[in-house]
């Protein structure tokens, strides 16, 4: 039987996910959000719930510290950060948010775990296969350069223990020739699935810096997840106001155009790109469109819907529309799409992103279907 704390733990996880005890939600400390930082290093705060207490207002309090420095020198971090030392019974308060450095694969896994993202089922279209040699098994013969030290020593330890010559107080383990283990190669047939993500973004005057920041963060995480699911992934970027053009990643996030908004222009360009470069029978295609919901005219929206029906939907895994709320946006396009396809459509996924905090929920909207 499991320890009862596992039940407390499961309950805590449910509260954090908002499934039970809704009244606690407001105490869950901000920072469930995962923020890209530097090239490969990230901050992974852990969720925690602060039970409200009478306590002192943080910053006016100040504190005492130890170390060098003159008056006016900054003391990095907040009071309460980093408490070194050993744990002791009855230690209640401590630092709650921890920074962890980790690599991209681990991050993708955490993202998948946290959001409970399903593994993507690639379309049953052509799956390229190739043979790869991978050093995944262990043999008793091989060149020294492939010697597996850990396994070798394990063997030696096993032998010494079974022979009764191992002394835990003098844990010396000496491998002999027959303990040696080597990495050896297995041939594997690998199925490859290729995917392309096409990002489209409205860069008309109403999309401000904050909105673009949201799109940037969101696309980072979407890429991260799709990369963990597909071996081969290509990413294309389209920006549009009244006309659309294809750009590189950098331009995509920096350009600020002005003028009107014709969403159909982007959809048309997207169609062209797919037609020329990506055979829908070979590729898993993910078009994402982000805007603040404004479109120039109802007529143009009609053109958009036609494009979706006749080309984009039949040829892509799913079509995602993320509406970034801005002060000027009318959010009309969201209404039009949800009127036509419904908010829970399998093929057209709609998500409203109010602010940075909503990014994770929106990623779950997009990727939660496993398509």
């Amino acid at each position, binding site marked *: 039987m499991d320890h009862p704390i596992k039940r407390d733990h499961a309950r805590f996880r449910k509260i954090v996910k908002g499934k039970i005890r809704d009244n606690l939600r407001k105490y869950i400390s901000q920072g469930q959000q995962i923020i890209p930082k530097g090239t490969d290093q990230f901050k992974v705060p852990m969720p925690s719930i602060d039970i409200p207490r*009478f306590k002192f207002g943080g910053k006016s309090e100040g504190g005492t510290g130890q170390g060098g420095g003159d008056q006016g020198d900054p003391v990095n971090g907040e009071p309460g950060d980093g408490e070194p030392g050993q744990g002791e019974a009855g230690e209640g308060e401590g630092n709650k948010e921890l920074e962890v450095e980790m690599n991209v694969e681990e991050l993708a896994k955490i993202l998948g775990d946290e959001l409970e993202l399903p593994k993507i089922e690639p379309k049953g279209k052509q799956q390229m296969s190739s043979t790869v040699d991978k050093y995944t098994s262990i043999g008793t013969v091989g060149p020294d350069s492939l010697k597996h030290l850990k396994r070798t020593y394990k063997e030696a330890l096993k032998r010494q223990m079974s022979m009764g010559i191992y002394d835990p107080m003098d844990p010396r383990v000496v491998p002999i020739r027959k303990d040696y283990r080597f990495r050896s190669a297995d041939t594997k047939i690998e199925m490859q699935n290729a995917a392309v993500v096409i990002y489209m973004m409205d860069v008309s005057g109403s999309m401000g810096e904050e909105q673009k920041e949201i799109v940037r963060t969101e696309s980072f995480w979407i890429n991260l997840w799709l990369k963990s699911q597909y071996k081969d992934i290509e990413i294309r970027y389209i920006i549009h106001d009244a006309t659309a053009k294809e750009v590189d990643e950098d331009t995509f996030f920096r350009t600020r155009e002005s003028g009107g908004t014709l969403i159909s222009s982007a959809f048309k360009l997207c169609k062209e790109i797919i037609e020329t470069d990506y055979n829908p029978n070979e590729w898993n295609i993910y078009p994402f469109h982000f805007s603040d919901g404004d479109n120039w005219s109802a007529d143009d929206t009609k053109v958009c819907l036609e494009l979706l029906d006749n080309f984009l939907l039949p040829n892509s895994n799913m079509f995602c529309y993320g509406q970034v709320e801005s002060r000027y946006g009318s959010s009309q396009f969201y209404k039009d799409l949800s009127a036509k396809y419904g908010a829970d459509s399998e093929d057209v996924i709609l998500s409203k992103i109010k602010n940075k905090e909503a990014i994770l929920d929106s990623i779950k909207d997009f990727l939660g279907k496993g398509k």
Partner: protein
Amino acid sequence: MLRSKPINGKLLDLQREIQGYADEYGLDYFPQIFEMCDYDTINILAAQGGFPIRYPHWKFGMDYDQLSKGYRFGIQKIYEMVINTNPCYAYLLEVNNWLDQKLVMAHVYGHNDFFKNNKWFSTTNRNMMDVMANHGSKIRRYMEKYGQTKVELFIDRVLSLENLLDGTHLFETNEILVSRGETEEKFIEETENGDYVVDDRSSALKSYMRVEKKKQKDNFQGPSESPAMNAEKNTVKGEKDILRFLINNAPLENWEADIISCLRDEAYYFLPQRITKIMNEGWASYWHSKILTQKALNGSEIIDFATKHAGVMAMSKQNINPYKIGYELFHDIEHRWDTGKFGKEYNECTNMYEKENWNTNAMQGREKIFSIRKSHNDITFIHEFLTPEFCNRQQLFTYKFNPRNQRMEIDTRDFEAIKQKLLTQLTNFGSPVISVEDANYKNRKELLLKHEHYGVDLDMKFAAETMSNLYSIWKRPVSLTTKYEDKVVIFQFDGKELKAVS
């Protein structure tokens, strides 16, 4: 559900060896039991405050979540855990190496000695393992009866008031309460029934009796409590033990009163550890370093020990490290009393050179620190023994928030300022001082609390939530008088929102 097992073989030999050294140095401890466990078990124990069985609550799950993630990502590892019980239990981590175990054992004997001898611990219940387990089964039963969510919600509310304690109540043993007449009624009742036993009653039983007593009181008085109201108003003013106040005065169901008294017992059990953190850790560190460097280490372990010890002693700019400050202060005191750097003559000496090299060979250091560990807590410890020389040597400073560039900056290295800041941080174990001002405020059975303002404002967002929790227990509007942004304000929570009323 114990997943730890007693140590044996070589480790038991090691314990005997370390215990022998502890005896040589004159440490005085409870019987010491070491148990071995894996990291998951130690995470569970740590999440539950060191105890194997607690009541069901998500906060233990949260702490467990953080500890195990911390372990998995290699951010932190718990070396040891020791619990204030008799016999004293301590847990060793399986994966630790021989030197770690040595260090931990020596450290634990320091804590054990402190638990046994420090006066602030003298009234703590040393059978707390059983008490906690009893609380657990009681609360589990309430959950079965009234529903998990309902009981958990109530626990959340009580936990939000858990830090509103009165440190002086640590010395309120049952005998004192009785002689003061506060429990006179109960006393008579019980002697008549013939089941009065002075000390052996578990606190679970006591809290049960509190409930029973309240039931009887309710029955006697019926719904009209008005005659008692005025008298009540006088006796409760200044009460800082808010939980006790609620048990006696709030309109509670029996199970609610019982849960409050369980949680209150637990909060008071942990309180001595909160008010002696610096001393307790300093004392344990002093002894692990003494025992290891003078006795237990062999030559090949010195470097490893130095690394480990340095890790424990790491300084931080954001916070003082209680291990470091406590350890250094005990050493400083020992040195001062060994060389006679104390008393009138030394204090009045103005020759800096002479003062620096003062040595009367008094050799009273060891004796002095043993007597300090008996009678002091962190506040009196810092108040009496922090010296300008020490602050200077330890590079202590205070910092404050600079609103101009939004960062924390070093404020001063002035001795008086540092001492003041440290003492302020330690006052009332770091919690705001909140007391009952009026339990019949405006003659409408409203509750008025008072916050003693010592220069730092309350976090009003948290205060609002806390007052809303208090409201749902008190069931009438709750007000708080405090100073906010340099103005005296009364905040009132009326069931909907927090408003400043004056």
